[in-house]
């Protein structure tokens, strides 16, 4: 069994001018299992950032000495590592709101918090921002410096397009996963279109015009929703500002839990199909702020993008394709400490232990490709290719390559930054104020939603889905009872009671439905049933 490296704690760089706050943050970070790196000023922080390569940066915007928090963020973001890790800005209060909006606009801060910052709250935000990213990838790998992927990992981009022959599906998935961003991937081949929506790097919804892949067709063909019920729901959906899924649930055509599970199954199927595509046009729209992005259906919390990349490559990539991907590596290859975390998702001890053990003997990509079992075993080759794409296998690139990439990404980022700054300087003050107000409102919504999300985990979501379904079923059962459709009422109420067996009152209603189902019976019973 591969053991996680002892140094696999996530490193968090905490920058604050107040000694007492640094102590509080340090203590809280240790309690949360993070490795705290603290700095009092921008210069200290910059030195630590370069030496330690943290997974997250948290900085006060108002720092003592030379250099502000915004300056630090700008320097960090200009690096290839800093472009992809989460950065949280801490505001000294409302007076600094202008500085905060500047930081958000110009430097793509992932979040900001008002002072005083509660340690637990800060750590929750950190955990949320790094969730789904394998430990070690961001702090150790050469992925951020990978020549082929540097463009897709550049956080300053918001749109990318091209052909799958140039940048394959796995790499496009990786660009969401590694940056934890939201957005949409659209791929077209002939008349067929597949679209996948991502939320914080996780695929949450997929749709396609391929026959049977559309979620509504999927539900009907799978027997989860009656065809007539779907048609009625579609008619209602045209007139309301809700998703078709929500309409189906509110009409009692499907339970919320089943909808959640079927959406997940549909996402799996559509993405599995997508990975079989090798030609076609694609475009990617990245959203800089996940909270402004609304997934069209229920949010998935079940499978990480890593799962899809690893499964997609193992299922669909040929030997030639895998070899081609690995051949982009030019330096020495190493297995990152993220590999066990990535492969843990696959219930397959062979790939989990044996392949990585083989990797340990490797050197460069050409040597690796000649090694047993890679020269014979296509599955093993696919597993390694998947690890390469998602960062379980990393390349140590030369200093010259690194300089070249940094020049390339830094100049690109500078160009975009200059364009934004130039546009901002020409902006009318009223327009800028309105834009800042929109950003503040968006950030407020983001904070509000984040607070709501904190309360829930997968189990509580599933329970909530059952509760919603139960209430819908109960209400529908009562309506059916009033309409004297007793058989349907009894079945619907049975479903309500099954989903919420603790609702004592509902049993009485169910009893009324049972009693009403019988046409004949003692006069007293019938009389009792006449009561309002």
């Amino acid at each position, binding site marked *: 069994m591969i053991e996680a490296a002892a140094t696999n704690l996530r490193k968090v760089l905490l920058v604050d001018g107040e000694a007492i706050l640094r102590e509080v943050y340090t203590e809280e970070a240790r309690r949360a299992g993070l490795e705290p790196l603290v700095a009092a000023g921008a210069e200290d922080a910059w030195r630590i950032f370069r030496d330690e390569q943290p997974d997250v940066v948290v900085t006060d915007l108002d720092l003592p000495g030379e250099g502000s928090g915004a300056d630090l963020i700008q320097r960090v973001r200009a690096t290839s590592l800093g472009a992809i890790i989460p950065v949280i800005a801490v505001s000294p209060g409302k007076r600094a709101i202008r500085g905060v909006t500047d930081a958000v606009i110009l430097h793509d801060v992932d979040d900001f918090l008002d002072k005083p910052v509660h340690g637990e709250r800060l750590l929750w935000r950190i955990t949320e921002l790094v969730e789904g990213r394998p430990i070690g990838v961001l702090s150790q790998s050469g992925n951020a410096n990978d020549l082929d992927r540097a463009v897709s990992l550049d956080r300053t981009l918001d749109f990318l397009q091209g052909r799958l022959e140039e940048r394959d599906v796995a790499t496009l998935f990786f660009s969401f996963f590694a940056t934890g961003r939201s957005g949409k991937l659209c791929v077209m081949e002939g008349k067929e279109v597949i679209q996948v929506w991502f939320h914080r790097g996780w695929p949450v919804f997929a749709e396609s015009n391929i026959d049977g892949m559309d979620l509504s067709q999927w539900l009907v063909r799978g027997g989860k929703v009656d065809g007539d019920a779907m048609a009625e729901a579609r008619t209602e959906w045209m007139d309301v500002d809700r998703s078709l899924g929500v309409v189906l649930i509110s009409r009692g055509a499907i339970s919320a839990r089943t909808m959640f599970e079927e959406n997940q199954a549909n996402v799996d199927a559509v993405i599995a199909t997508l990975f079989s595509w090798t030609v076609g046009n694609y475009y990617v729209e990245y959203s800089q702020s996940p909270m402004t992005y609304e997934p069209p259906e229920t949010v998935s919390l079940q499978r990480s993008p890593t799962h899809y990349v690893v499964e997609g490559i193992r299922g669909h990539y040929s030997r030639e394709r895998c070899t081609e991907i690995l051949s982009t590596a030019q330096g020495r290859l190493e297995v990152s400490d993220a590999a066990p975390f990535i492969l843990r998702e696959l219930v397959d001890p062979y790939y989990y232990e044996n392949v990585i053990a083989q990797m340990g003997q490797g050197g460069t990509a050409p040597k690796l490709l000649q090694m047993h079992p890679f020269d014979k075993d296509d599955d093993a080759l696919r597993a390694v290719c998947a690890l390469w794409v998602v960062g379980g296998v990393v390349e140590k690139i030369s200093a010259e390559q690194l300089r070249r990439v940094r020049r390339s990404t830094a100049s690109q980022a500078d160009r975009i930054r200059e364009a934004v700054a130039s546009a901002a300087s020409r902006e009318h003050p009223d327009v800028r104020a309105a834009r800042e107000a929109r950003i503040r409102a968006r950030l407020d919504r983001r904070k509000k939603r984040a607070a709501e999300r904190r309360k829930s985990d997968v189990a509580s979501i599933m329970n909530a889905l059952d509760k919603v379904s139960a209430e819908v079923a109960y209400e529908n059962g009562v309506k059916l009872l009033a309409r004297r459709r007793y058989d349907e009422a009894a079945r619907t109420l049975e479903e309500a009671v099954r989903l919420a067996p603790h609702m004592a009152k509902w049993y009485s209603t*169910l009893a009324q439905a049972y009693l009403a189902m019988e046409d004949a019976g003692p006069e007293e*019973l019938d009389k*009792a049933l006449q009561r309002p």
Partner: protein
Amino acid sequence: MKRGAALDPRNGEPYHWLGMVLMRMGHPDEARITLRRSIELGSPHAEQSRSLLASLG
């Protein structure tokens, strides 16, 4: 139905409906006990429970 009554053992209403279902299912003895329980607990349908008990003899 029995679970429903057990969930709220001080509420007479579930016993009333359970008694009616038992009666319909042809279990007069159990129905009698359940309807009596409903009356003891002060069900809002106590009057109907009494009528049903009377009809059971």
